[in-house]
């Protein structure tokens, strides 16, 4: 009998064959391991993302939700409160509002690339993408730089799940708690001495004349740090992997860097690091011959929808000329990733600089170590040999 186990290391490494079986044979699948339904077809996922009234985020959006988080972050609040919370940050992270970040991002990329000069091999994740991401986030939030390393380690740990117990382990929960405390201190400090950074603006905001609750601010800040570090780094790392595995695409980008954005969009479709999120049904739904009950959770497998041949022809081919509009790499609907413009800008600059410094590289590991996670998928290490 077919099983889909989002906790197995085999799934972390390669979920795509199982996704195909899900799409073709079990489009509404009850996943024993996670205790929830799974949507894998593009159209079903889009329908769920559009219908937040039926597919609620208020009971959490992570496949394995962290304690006390649901209801207190942007991603775990439904409209109309969600829309008002989001509006507080949205305008500051639109493409046009981000021009001021271009030079700092480029400088950060060059700094870390300079440190790699002369090396024959290095780890793209730990020597480049993570470092760039952490520097950028600390700059954006004006956070104390002596905490960079520990914040990064905790952000990476808190998104993971234990492959044996199929739950968040004590180390993952401890990392989350550490981050929540770090955020609480940061919030308290910014309340006393607000700056003109993104965090200060959010922390001092009001909705309809009402101050945001401390818990709401702290957990939203926690999530922004988690997403800013883990998700952006994951996005860059899978892009690096794709360019290592597809030399013809890499050569095309080296010859014409203006193609980098197209390659990024295709990476977001082909193997987005944001593989699976969840919603909770507010009413019974009948679909593909199954009856799902109000209160049931539904996993939306973006990574499966992005490989749905019903939407994207030849979905298993990494094709940088595809221009896959409407992909689910950032989710979609009211909860689509808040950081899309920052992520695209940072990734574009990072690869402009990286490919200039290292136009030619191959990966040296046959099998990659993958983040153990029911939500995210990216390599923990990506060893490259250059030249």
């Amino acid at each position, binding site marked *: 009998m077919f099983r889909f186990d989002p906790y197995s290391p085999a799934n972390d490494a390669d979920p795509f064959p199982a996704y195909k079986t899900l799409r073709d044979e079990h489009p509404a699948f009850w996943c024993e391991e996670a205790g929830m339904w799974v949507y894998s077809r593009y*159209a079903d996922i*889009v*329908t769920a*993302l*559009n*219908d937040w009234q039926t597919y609620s985020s208020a009971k959490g959006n992570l496949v394995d939700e962290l304690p006390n988080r649901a209801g207190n972050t942007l991603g775990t609040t439904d409209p109309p409160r969600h*829309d008002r919370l*989001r*509006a507080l940050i*949205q*305008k500051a*992270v*639109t*493409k*046009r509002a981000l021009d001021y970040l271009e030079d700092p991002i480029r400088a950060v990329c060059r700094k870390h690339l300079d440190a790699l000069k002369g090396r024959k091999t290095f780890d793209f994740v730990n020597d480049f993408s993570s470092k760039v991401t952490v520097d950028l986030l600390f700059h954006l939030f004006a956070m104390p730089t002596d905490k960079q390393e520990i914040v990064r380690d905790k952000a990476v740990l808190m998104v993971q799940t234990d492959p044996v117990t199929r739950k968040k382990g004590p180390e993952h929960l401890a990392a989350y708690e550490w981050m929540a405390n770090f955020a609480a201190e940061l919030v308290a400090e910014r309340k006393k001495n607000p700056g003109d950074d993104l965090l200060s603006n959010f922390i001092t905001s009001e909705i309809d004349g009402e101050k945001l609750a401390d818990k709401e601010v702290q957990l939203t800040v926690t999530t922004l740090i988690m997403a800013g570090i883990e998700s952006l780094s994951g996005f860059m790392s899978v892009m690096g992997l794709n360019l290592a595995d597809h030399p013809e695409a890499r050569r095309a980008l080296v010859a014409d860097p203006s193609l980098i954005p197209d390659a990024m969009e295709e990476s977001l479709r082909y193997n987005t690091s944001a593989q699976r999120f969840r919603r909770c049904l507010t009413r019974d739904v009948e679909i593909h011959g199954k009856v799902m009950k109000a209160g049931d959770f539904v996993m939306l497998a973006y990574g499966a929808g992005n490989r749905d041949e019903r*939407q994207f022809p030849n979905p298993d081919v990494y094709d940088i000329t595809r221009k896959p*509009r*409407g992909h689910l790499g*950032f*989710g*979609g*609907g*009211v*909860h*689509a*990733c*808040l950081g*899309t*413009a920052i992520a*695209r800008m940072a990734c574009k600059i990072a690869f402009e600089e990286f490919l200039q410094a290292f136009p030619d590289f191959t990966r040296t590991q046959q099998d990659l170590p993958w983040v153990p996670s029911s939500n995210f998928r990216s390599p923990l290490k990506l060893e490259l040999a250059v030249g």
Partner: protein
Amino acid sequence: MPTVTYIEHDGTEHRVELPAGWTLMQGATLNGINGIEGECGGSCGCATCHVYVDEAYLDKLPAPSETEEEMLECTASPRRANSRLSCQIKAMPEIDGIVVHLPETQS
């Protein structure tokens, strides 16, 4: 299924049927219609799905939210009285047959 007609800046017309509840932005991107980008994924966060709504249908749409109003200030092509973001317009029976004109540029 509600029908939507998209008219590109060069006059090319596309008539498509959308599942109820899908947005006009999705209708365009999913049918390969040029002229709508939808960079933010439909969260009313980028103004790259800007359309000019045919006057006959304008009053049938719910008024834009505060966020949409703010984003409409950021459109790449000029904002007009009938400007809307197509990610905020859901295909519903009440607007069956709606016609939208796509601007010259989105970014």
